[in-house]
């Protein structure tokens, strides 16, 4: 075990897989010689060559289109989209092709492509470096969607994604690249060192896709969340001294509804929290499917805390971000709720 931050853990996952499997290749903007704008691929081109760690033109649609072809020809491409805000030019290749190929060819053609992309705000990136578009991928049949909240899961899930024969869109909550974030931007930023999930094996291991994790066990209320918000929610519950069970969804598709439902059946109350905009977001699916499963055990309506339904405003980042206060207020209201 070594202390790694999330970027190092991701780098280690790709390093391990490039070494283990000659069919693994990386492609993306600025990922090669430079090592990526967030340094996730640092040193990998030097180690594995420019034909396996490939600098690409600025064409997200071309990157994914080419990656699909590579996958069809026996490679396991890992494409980096520099920011999730810039994944939309690739949306057609992902939705119409990557997600459909196995199905429409009745398994004769498949492309095990992993698409890594940093998402989320809290880094003063403004509306085009802060988005969380997981919802518009989770709705698409045929792709798996994953978001880790810590270095250990990041490496294990990324290895699982690369080894997965299905396409995976892998979202990286960049606000927690360097350390957990409890929602207070004024506090000196924490590091992963010392955090239990910052202890990462150097070698190969994987975390199975399709399983949620109990980030904090509790009895009073269930908070269903993922990514950066896992840490904010734990902090908010702590602020209130509330014995909340915080469930880290981790795998958005397939969803581990059983783990979520078991928790809600136990607590009787549920708060769904994500950073993405609220309306029509992934939290709506969480709320709807939990309600369908747990309706008769619910002691109060399932509530959602999310980013407001506006673009991510540069100057009002901390009024926009669903921080500890917003989560606390929602928890307080939820605990008080009664007919």
């Amino acid at each position, binding site marked *: 075990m070594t202390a790694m931050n999330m970027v190092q853990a991701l780098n280690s996952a790709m390093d391990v897989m490039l070494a283990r499997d000659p069919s693994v290749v990386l492609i993306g903007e600025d990922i090669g010689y430079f090592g990526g704008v967030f340094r996730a691929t640092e040193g990998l081109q030097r180690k594995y060559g420019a034909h396996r760690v490939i600098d690409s*033109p600025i064409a997200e649609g071309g990157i994914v*289109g080419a990656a699909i072809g590579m996958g*069809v020809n026996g490679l396991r491409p890992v494409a980096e989209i520099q920011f999730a805000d810039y994944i939309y030019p690739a949306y057609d290749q992902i939705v119409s*092709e990557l997600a459909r190929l196995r199905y*429409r060819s009745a398994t004769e053609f498949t492309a095990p492509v992993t698409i890594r992309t940093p998402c989320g705000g809290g880094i003063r990136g403004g509306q085009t470096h802060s988005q969380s578009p997981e919802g518009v991928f989770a709705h698409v049949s045929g792709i798996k969607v994953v978001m880790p909240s810590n270095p250990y899961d990041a490496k294990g899930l990324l290895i699982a994604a690369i080894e997965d024969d299905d396409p995976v869109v892998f979202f990286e909550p960049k606000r927690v690249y360097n350390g957990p974030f409890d929602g207070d931007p004024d506090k000196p930023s924490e590091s992963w060192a010392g955090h239990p999930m910052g202890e990462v094996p150097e070698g190969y291991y994987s975390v199975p896709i399709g399983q949620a994790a109990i980030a904090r066990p509790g009895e009073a209320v269930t908070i269903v969340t993922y990514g950066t918000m896992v840490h904010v929610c734990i902090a908010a519950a702590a602020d209130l001294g509330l014995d909340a069970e915080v469930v880290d969804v981790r795998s958005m598709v397939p969803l581990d509804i059983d783990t979520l439902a078991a928790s809600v059946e136990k607590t009787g109350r549920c708060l769904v929290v994500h950073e993405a905009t609220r309306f029509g977001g992934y939290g709506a699916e969480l709320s709807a499917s939990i309600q369908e499963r747990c309706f008769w055990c619910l002691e109060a309506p399932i509530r959602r805390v999310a980013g407001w339904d506006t673009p991510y405003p540069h100057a009002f980042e901390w009024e926009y971000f669903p921080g500890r206060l917003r989560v606390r207020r929602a928890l307080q209201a939820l605990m008080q709720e009664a007919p």
Partner: protein
Amino acid sequence: MSTPHLHVPAVPARPGEQPDFSYVRLAPAGAEPRPPVDVAVHETAALAEGLVRVLDDEGRAVGPWDPGLTSEALQRGLREMLLTRVFDDRMQRTQRQGRISFYVRSYGEEAVSVAAAHALRPRDMLFPSYRNQGLHIARGMPLIDMMCQLLSNTRDMCKGRQLPVMYHSAPLRLFSISGNLATQYPQAVGWAMAAAIKGEDDVAAGWIGEGSTAAADFHHALLFAKVYRAPVILNVVNNQWAISTFQGYAGGEQRSFAARGPGVGVAGLRVDGNDYLAVYAATAWAAERARAGHGATLIELVTYRAGAHSTSDDPSRYRPKDEYHAWPLGDPIERLKRHLIARGEWSEARHAALAAELEGMVGEDWKQALAFGALAEGPRLDPALMFGDVFKEMPPHLEAQRAEMEAELAARRGSGGAGDGSGA
């Protein structure tokens, strides 16, 4: 200086007007030089605006692009082009009879696919559009397999999931056809990049229509092919029409589509797409160039969509009915037939006999295919197949939905309802 106004591309002839193909820039057969395959990209600029032709009006093969094929090879070309047409005509008729839900013919464009398939190696990977069935036929896909796909019957290779004509074959290296235009183009480039990464000398080839060159994927494909010098052949089938839209709206006014290649830094060839020998020679040249590591070629195949866009289309609404007769590049089958006859290796009689043989063959196969069912009358595949292969392993939510559907079907049978979802 004219007062400002929006320019819209001219369409030479609309219904009721005289066909006018004066806009098609021609060149005599044999006129274009054949450069070495390592020619510099910018030196192909003239070829990209010219027209590579081998068969002249007398049916002779002339000039440096003559691939010098054997009589046997030529007869195979003729046979498979004719088979493609016979197959198309028959499938079109069955669609009219309601047996299949949709069909797309390649009438008039048979050389584009058949000659290319013959010029490539079996290991080369093909990324077709929906109008390249000649590739499948030339690669030996059993007609029955194609027919069963068209019928969405119990032997449908797509397990009932795809529209008719969306064939695929991994063993024959024919990529799965997509309903989304041009998406296969950057995929073909990526496939070729992978071959290069793996150190294999396989070549990829992709086909799209001229209308599809407007798609972003065309740009991405050309760019990636240029940047990584990918061993890929990018074919643009310029059949003058994109449903009702004339090729001028794809940028064809006063500029060839092949010229996009040199513009970006990819070799370009403009080729007589109704000339089997020219298509064969151009494809062979591009494949050799790619295999030798000199990179990609953009080939524009000038042809004409002699039929409707598909069985859902009625071209008499937007172009003169008899336009095809005025098409200056003739008919690909007629021209190769004429060449073989000129060589003394073929005759009208043999041709008629061949046509009869192929029609008989297609009819036979159709009977056999029908034995496996038809979408309308059944038998059909198990609807539960719709839940398979969305993922490699079926996740719980799809298991649950499959069970729901099974229960629904049981209830429907109970209520004696038709296979209609209404249960009424």
